[in-house]
């Protein structure tokens, strides 16, 4: 479990995070939901230690991360896996080497054979068992995300952070990536935090949702509760989503069959 208490961060006097307090629960997909510029990425960067908050504390399973000794912070960081928005794969390494990299760096006690077995297992887990020899430039955006996930889980991470895992992907691939993250979270009982503004992800994998608006946490709850939330900003955000608007249209116009009858799909 990750506990975030009163995190504040400002840039040149402009407050981006205005005292965020929330909890990321273990074994659940915790979604940080919000529009662009609401402070989601800054909060995530503060949590993983890429940025230092001005005020507040972050605790990983009871161990304080912010302002702790470098050694303690290093220990926590070595339990963190992260999937970056652009995947952040190392250009000069193959898919196999990218996945093997954290094992080589963080677990020197592992033999070469043990590392190979682990990498093969992780690549198989994300459905890329035949792509080990490819370079990042030779694979698609969806495959890069999968390699990013494989690299994140390779050293048995306890915490998984995903920065907009669906950005730049087609809807079908997005769903597959969401499902993969969800499965991995439950399978290994890890604490997963996902930045998103995609309502598809909310509906599919939102075990616990935290809604941010203008640097403040306005709401948190589950995907079953979100449609009934009485927060105007959240309602506006939800109903600006094309998915929800489409669902509303289906309801308003008497179901999908009625819409298709009025506006039939071209027959092949």
């Amino acid at each position, binding site marked *: 479990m990750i506990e975030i208490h009163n995190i504040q961060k400002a840039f040149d006097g402009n407050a981006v995070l205005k005292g965020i307090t929330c909890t990321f629960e273990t074994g659940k997909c915790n979604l940080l939901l919000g529009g662009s510029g609401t402070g989601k990425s800054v909060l995530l960067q503060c949590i993983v230690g890429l940025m230092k908050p001005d005020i507040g504390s972050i605790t990983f399973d009871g161990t304080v991360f912010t302002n702790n000794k470098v050694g303690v912070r290093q*220990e926590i960081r070595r339990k*963190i896996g992260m999937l*970056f928005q652009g995947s952040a794969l190392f*250009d000069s390494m193959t898919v196999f080497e990218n996945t093997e990299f954290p094992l080589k*760096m963080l677990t020197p006690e592992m033999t070469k054979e043990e590392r190979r077995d682990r990498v093969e297992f992780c690549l198989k887990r994300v459905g890329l068992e035949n792509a080990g020899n490819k370079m990042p430039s030779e694979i698609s955006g969806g495959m890069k995300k999968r390699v990013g996930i494989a690299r994140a889980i390779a050293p048995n991470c306890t915490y998984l952070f995903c920065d907009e895992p669906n950005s730049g992907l087609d809807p079908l691939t997005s769903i597959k990536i969401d499902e993969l993250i969800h499965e991995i979270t439950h399978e290994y009982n890890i604490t997963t935090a996902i930045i998103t503004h995609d309502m598809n992800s909310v509906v599919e994998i939102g075990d616990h949702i935290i809604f941010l608006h203008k640097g403040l946490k306005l709401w948190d709850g589950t995907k079953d509760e979100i449609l009934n939330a009485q927060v105007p900003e959240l309602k506006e955000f939800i109903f600006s989503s094309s998915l929800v608007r489409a669902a509303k249209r289906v309801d308003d116009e008497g179901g999908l069959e009625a819409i298709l009858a009025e506006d039939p799909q071209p027959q092949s």
Partner: protein
Amino acid sequence: MVKTFGEFILFLQSMLVRKERFKTLFERTIDESVIIGVNSVFIVAIVSAFIGAVTCVQISYNLVNPLIPKSTIGYMVREMTILELAPTITSIVLAGKVGSSIAGGLGTMRITEQVAALEVMGINSASYLVFPRIVASIVMFPMLVILAMVLSILGGYLAGTLTGAISAQEYIEGIRTDFIPYNILFALIKSVVFAFLVSAISAYKGYFTTGGALEVGSASTAAVNNSIIAILLADFVLAAILL
């Protein structure tokens, strides 16, 4: 200016604390040595051979006094090559090739979040990415300078003898006259200092790149410009101190 210098010193310090394992750094240094050293042999060879050749031809063109022996051409080619042309011109060429490569590589890693990925894994990115590049430069620059010295003097020999400006015997006599071994040491000291300056400045420029592709290009250009200025300043300071 003072702030930038302070940041530069802190950057170098961050590279030395929480260093990665020796084996990892050694392997990285070998990889970087190939990129910085072996891949630069061709350009250094071409530049130094032609500089030696041109130096020989131009000295012979200016040496019109019949009282000055022809072997002076060989002597002057050697002195100019060892003291200045090999270490300084080679380092300036390498500032263009290696410096832009270091800054561009690190800048691209920064903007594509590869540096952030290392940091999140708990790896000291400065130690892992920059330290091996600086060590590899310090090891490879002197080797390339020695190669440049040899090829420059050889280039002068070929140009002088093929154009008929000087005989082979006179040239060899010239390059053996009043040889001071300390000059070689001086050139190697210069090359080590230049190696550090080029690699550290370029790494600093690349490591702190922000923005996108345009800024990576700007960082590469700034790295080369600043490295060349630093080389010329250091060249003067070292000559004043050590000669």
